[in-house]
């Protein structure tokens, strides 16, 4: 494996691993804060039990997220010193703000997880709110830095060197808003549906279990709201891409020719050697309409640019289809749940629906991984879009296969342990819930 590929593989693997834990760190506080607020309001002990049990799972996942995030901040330099040397000052602002937000997140999470007996109940709840706010801000700041790599602004280049740096303009680049919105919603959506799915699984065995009923109700409500909002955010992202990164959009859609009235493709496989996408279901003129609100609007195709500047089209197209498919299933699950609940005026806990939601457990996370694949692979061969090639940013360090394999083995090992521990935790949740039912 050549060193550039090893470096890219290590970065991709580290990001793919971290994003799951980072999303949990962002979104679980929302569920915990809702449960705890319901306890404060109603005094029903089941909500307190729920918040405490969710907090235990979050403690495990947040710790792994914190350490894998540290690895990433070093890997920026360990793998891409050329990129950091160039971009460090320009995108320093979001990174330093992220450091600040992460600091608050870690402090208040410590208070939230271990301070149940040590601070007053409203102070405890407030600590949870602070974790939610700072965790979300921390995610937003990091995504802002990534957005800059897609649409670099806030500087100019004179004689090959960077001048006129404007860190605020760099942070508020054209992609920031759409990417941050999309990622925040995705994190809440994925975590809420994963939580709902797990509780649905236990609820199917014991419909009357009040603990799982409340957990399912909170998680499903949050997940459904996010599932409804996410398509709007996706639309904003697509319109931004059409304007600023038309080639990435073309790769996502498998659009090779520049045409007026481009179709929307469902499925299909782009063949790079033939420069065409086959076996897709095409909805005529739909892409032009979705992006420009005009059935005959012009959409740029991949053939506009030389082959060496194109991203790997098949990966981007298929990852995009996968992301959208997962999103649609979750949207259906959310709408169906809302409709059932409205019609029955009660929690939708019929067997087939619980089974459906259980099957939805991993979909949000699959969508997140696929979505990041679209963003990152779709930007290739550039690390800074149209400015610096990924190949020019990589470290001169040889044998990069060694750290890549080391971190891969380490992360696989950690994933297995985390899954075992969470399973055990959910089983003991079950035991507690049963005894709670007796109270």
């Amino acid at each position, binding site marked *: 494996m050549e060193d550039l590929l090893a470096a890219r593989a290590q970065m991709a693997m580290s990001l793919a691993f971290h994003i799951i834990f980072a999303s949990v760190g962002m979104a679980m506080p929302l569920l915990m804060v809702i449960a705890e607020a319901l306890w404060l309001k109603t005094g029903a002990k089941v909500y307190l039990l729920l918040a405490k049990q969710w907090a235990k799972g979050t403690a495990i996942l947040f710790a792994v997220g914190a*350490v894998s995030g*540290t690895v990433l901040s070093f890997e920026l330099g360990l793998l891409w010193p050329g990129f950091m040397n160039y971009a460090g000052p320009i995108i320093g602002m979001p990174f330093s703000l992220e450091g600040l937000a992460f*600091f608050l997140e870690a402090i208040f999470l410590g208070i939230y*997880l271990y301070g149940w007996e040590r601070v007053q109940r409203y102070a405890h709840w407030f600590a949870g709110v602070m974790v939610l706010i700072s965790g979300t801000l921390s995610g937003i700041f990091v995504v802002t830095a990534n957005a800059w790599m897609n649409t670099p602004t806030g500087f100019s280049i004179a004689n090959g060197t960077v001048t006129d740096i404007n860190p*605020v303009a760099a942070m508020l680049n054209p992609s920031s808003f759409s990417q941050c919105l999309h990622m925040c919603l995705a994190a809440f959506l994925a975590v809420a549906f994963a939580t709902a799915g797990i509780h649905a699984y236990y609820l199917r065995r014991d419909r009357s279990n009040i603990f799982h009923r409340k957990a399912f109700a909170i998680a499903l409500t949050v997940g459904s709201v996010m599932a409804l909002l996410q398509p709007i955010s996706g639309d904003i992202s697509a319109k931004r891409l059409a304007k600023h990164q038309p080639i990435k959009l073309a790769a996502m859609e498998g659009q090779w020719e520049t045409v007026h009235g481009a179709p929307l493709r469902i499925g299909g496989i782009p063949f790079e050697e033939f420069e065409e996408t086959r076996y897709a279901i095409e909805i005529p003129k739909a892409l032009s309409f979705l992006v420009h609100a005009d059935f005959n609007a012009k959409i740029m195709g991949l053939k506009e640019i030389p082959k060496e500047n194109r991203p790997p089209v098949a990966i981007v197209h298929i990852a995009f289809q996968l992301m959208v498919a997962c999103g649609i299933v979750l949207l259906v699950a959310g709408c169906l749940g809302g409709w059932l609940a409205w019609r029955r005026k009660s929690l939708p806990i019929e067997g087939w629906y619980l089974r459906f939601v259980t099957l939805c457990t991993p979909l949000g996370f699959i969508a997140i991984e696929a979505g990041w694949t679209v963003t990152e692979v779709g930007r290739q061969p550039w690390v800074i879009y149209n400015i610096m090639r990924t190949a020019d940013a990589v470290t001169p360090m040889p044998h990069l296969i060694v750290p890549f394999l080391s971190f891969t083995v380490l992360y696989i090992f950690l994933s297995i342990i985390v899954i075992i521990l969470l399973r055990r935790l959910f089983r003991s949740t079950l035991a507690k819930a049963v005894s709670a039912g007796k109270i």
Partner: protein
Amino acid sequence: MFEFEFCIAGVMLISLILYVLTGGADFGGGIWDVFATGARANAQRKLITEAIAPIWEANHVWLIVIVVLLFVAFPPAFAAISTALHIPLTLMLIGIVLRGSAFVFRTYDVKEAGEHEPDRNEEREQSGPAYRRWSRVFAGASIITPIMLGVTLGAVATGTIHVNVENGQVDTDFVSSWLAPFPFAIGFFTLTLCALLAAVYLTLETEDSALQEDFRRRALIAAGSVGVMAWLSFMLSAEGAPTIRRGLSSSTWAICFHIITGTVSVTGMWAIWKRRFRLASALVPIQVGLIIFGWGVAQYPYLVAPALTFSNSAAPAVVLRLLLIIVGVGAVIVLPAFYYLYVVFKGRRRT
């Protein structure tokens, strides 16, 4: 002198001191987990766990602050350090990942016991095979990580990372800068500092006088080791880090500085000996802070000697000014919160 880059460098040095005083002590806890012995071995482990559980993640953020400040304010230095010291930094990261994960896994890898028998639960927690397995990982990683942190800082101090200022290229074989006696002396020096801090803090974490005695003994051993490693590092610096050596030995202020650090260290040791634990846990952090501060000042004006100084590797002033504003606002928000965390978990216990 009071230009932006020196302010940022000062903030980085303060952050490093705070990282060692807080996060370093968490690693020190892991070191004492290895050496938990005798009739109270389990009680020692329990005390260590309870002391670091709520705070280690927040303490750890100081390291992230340092890295971010380095790559935003001194990008060529970050690129050079992370290229030439790829290997020790990677080992440190693996240590960080394993330490943090093993610590939480140890807490939660407990076969469930019913709610109605909490005593049994606790007993299993302390002696079960899963607990012991994770303890070994936690302890091993707590030893590797500070050593590698010290090796990295020591290697930066050697002045052997050669950077071409024109194009930012680093001339390195990726090994010789850090695989040398001086960086490893600094590595073990860092380890002893962490062990000392942890042992001294732990004397205040318990009311049990037998446990206090255990950590008093450990603190004395650690304080002795710190003295030995300080002396050894200074000896090796003649060969290994001549620039630092000059900074630490040639001027009048340096001599005064040594006298102050030495006095604080000896008084700290006396306080441990006399069981004046509150006094000791005030003096020992000052001692450690002075040691790191001395190193930082001796580095001046070099960040990565011999080519990169604070001035020639600094980002443009507009970036630094904004960064300082963020640091200032951040300090106003974070420091009270950080203090509150410590008040909640480290304030006088009411049992």
